[in-house]
């Protein structure tokens, strides 16, 4: 039989690997559950910070420009910047919660158990949820915050009314945080 080099290579690999029966449908289970947890921490903080910084950037540039002619708007509209900053803090909170769960397994012999997989996927999901919901919220609050700063400069009466919109934008991030906290506290690696 004429074997192609690729097949030869795979056969060789299989002989060498420590789980000879590995197939593609088992791919996910080959990944260490702790890896999933670590990725959860990464997503929680990294994507949240991305959202927060983008929001501050969008708000900040407009706010600074508007404040040149109307300096009174600067202190009030700092709330928009704080709102964006809060999104980064949500990310930090979740990252801390998740990393507390990443203690080394007590029984290495029986590792990984099904519970470990559940926890690993759960933590990954929790991190992704909080990261991307904060990214969306950061964009929303940032774009709104900049526009509200300009509206406030033109007409001070608009600030409080428009600010309600920003609170709802922030609520998007908050929803992600609540779901993530519930998710991550309801499970843990096998101890």
């Amino acid at each position: 039989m004429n074997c192609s080099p690729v097949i030869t290579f795979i056969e060789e690999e299989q002989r060498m690997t420590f789980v000879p029966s590995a197939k593609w449908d088992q791919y996910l289970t080959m990944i260490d559950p702790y890896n999933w947890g670590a990725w959860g921490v990464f997503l929680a903080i990294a994507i949240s910070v991305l959202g927060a910084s983008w929001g501050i950037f969008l708000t900040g540039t407009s706010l600074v420009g508007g404040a040149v002619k109307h300096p009174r708007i600067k202190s009030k509209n700092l709330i928009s910047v704080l709102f964006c900053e809060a999104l980064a803090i949500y990310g930090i909170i979740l990252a801390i919660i998740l990393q507390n769960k990443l203690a080394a397994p007590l029984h290495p012999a029986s590792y990984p158990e099904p519970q470990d997989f559940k926890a690993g996927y759960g933590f990954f999901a929790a991190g992704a949820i909080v990261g991307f919901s904060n990214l969306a919220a950061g964009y929303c609050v940032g774009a709104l915050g900049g526009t509200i700063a300009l509206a406030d400069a033109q007409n001070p009466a608009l600030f409080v009314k428009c600010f309600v919109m920003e609170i709802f934008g922030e609520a998007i991030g908050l929803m992600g945080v609540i779901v993530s906290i519930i998710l991550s506290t309801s499970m843990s690696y096998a101890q």
Partner: protein
Amino acid sequence: MTSFVANHGYLDGLLRGYRSGLLTAADYANLTQCETVDDMKVHLMNTDYANVFQDLPSPLTTQSIAEACTRKMVEDFQSLRQPALEPLAKFLDYITYGYMIDNIVLILSETLHERGTENPAGDTQALLDRCHPLGLFEGITALCVAQTPAELYHLVLVNSPLAKYFLATLSMENLDEMHVEVIRNLLYKEYLKDFFRFCQQLGEPTSESMGDILKFEADRRSINITVNSWRMQALSKPWGHQSIQLTRFRASHLLGVCPVQPTRPDRRLPPPSLPQDDRQRIYPTFGELWPEGTSKLQDAVDMDGLRAAVDSVEAYRDVLQQQNENPDKTIEDCFFEKEVQNCLLAFESHYSYGAFYAYFRLKEQETRNIVWIAECIAQNKRDRINHFTPTI
């Protein structure tokens, strides 16, 4: 949208701040109550104009007021232009091209028509002072030296941003014989077309808001060219020694033209005549009226012909209607009103470069208003003091 705020958010905020510094109805009411021109300074010191009027020596003239207002506008422009990123920087540059055309035409008409007379060096400076500061560019001083328009092109303009407009419109052979107003309008035609194309490239919402403004500008020029060409024909008589400005929207309105009295007589210029074929050539080639309306405009010989030509466009029909109802107003005044409305509309759309253009048009209109009020006070013609177009 995101990149607009990220790149131009600061300037957009700044611009909207400037916009709220435009004179309000109350400011105009105060200004029109003034007894003397110096009283106007007191009121203007309470507005955004404070810093430019601070140092003005006390007996104010209309001229010095106009210069101060222009200086303020230039300051605003520079503070927006300096930190601007592309494509806003290019967009703002496009705004200055219009002033450049006016300056070139001003210098052309002053130097070329004085070819016989001596031109001392002091004159050059005086001439440059009359140019709009936004339209100054490197090498503009050399313009005064040029003896013929062709020479002018080869010496100076070939390096200026206007070179492509010159190339597109004018063949150098007959440049010498052409009247400066025709040159101005040909350049403007190319400039508007180029600006329009550039704005279309910028995409929504700039293409929409700027498209409307520039189409209006093009149509207004077409109509003005038509109306002015009748006036020219009427003046092409031995006693007609007034040079009629085809357009007085730009720098010319500030310096050469006083709003209350008729245009300053300029004996050097023979009254130009503008044949009908020429008219078609200088009509801008885009806008609501082009091509059907402009071909009708070409044949129009009186107001009825004009009305028939613009009848298909509601906005211009309204303008002419309005002018018909108020004989006090000129067509130009009605167009100014319409322009102010358009410019204010441009501020309603966010994430658009149109607001930058609109601000400077509004500022220009405001300068005209202040000069008009000052002129009316100086000449004691209070009954006409309210005949301006407020920018609100």
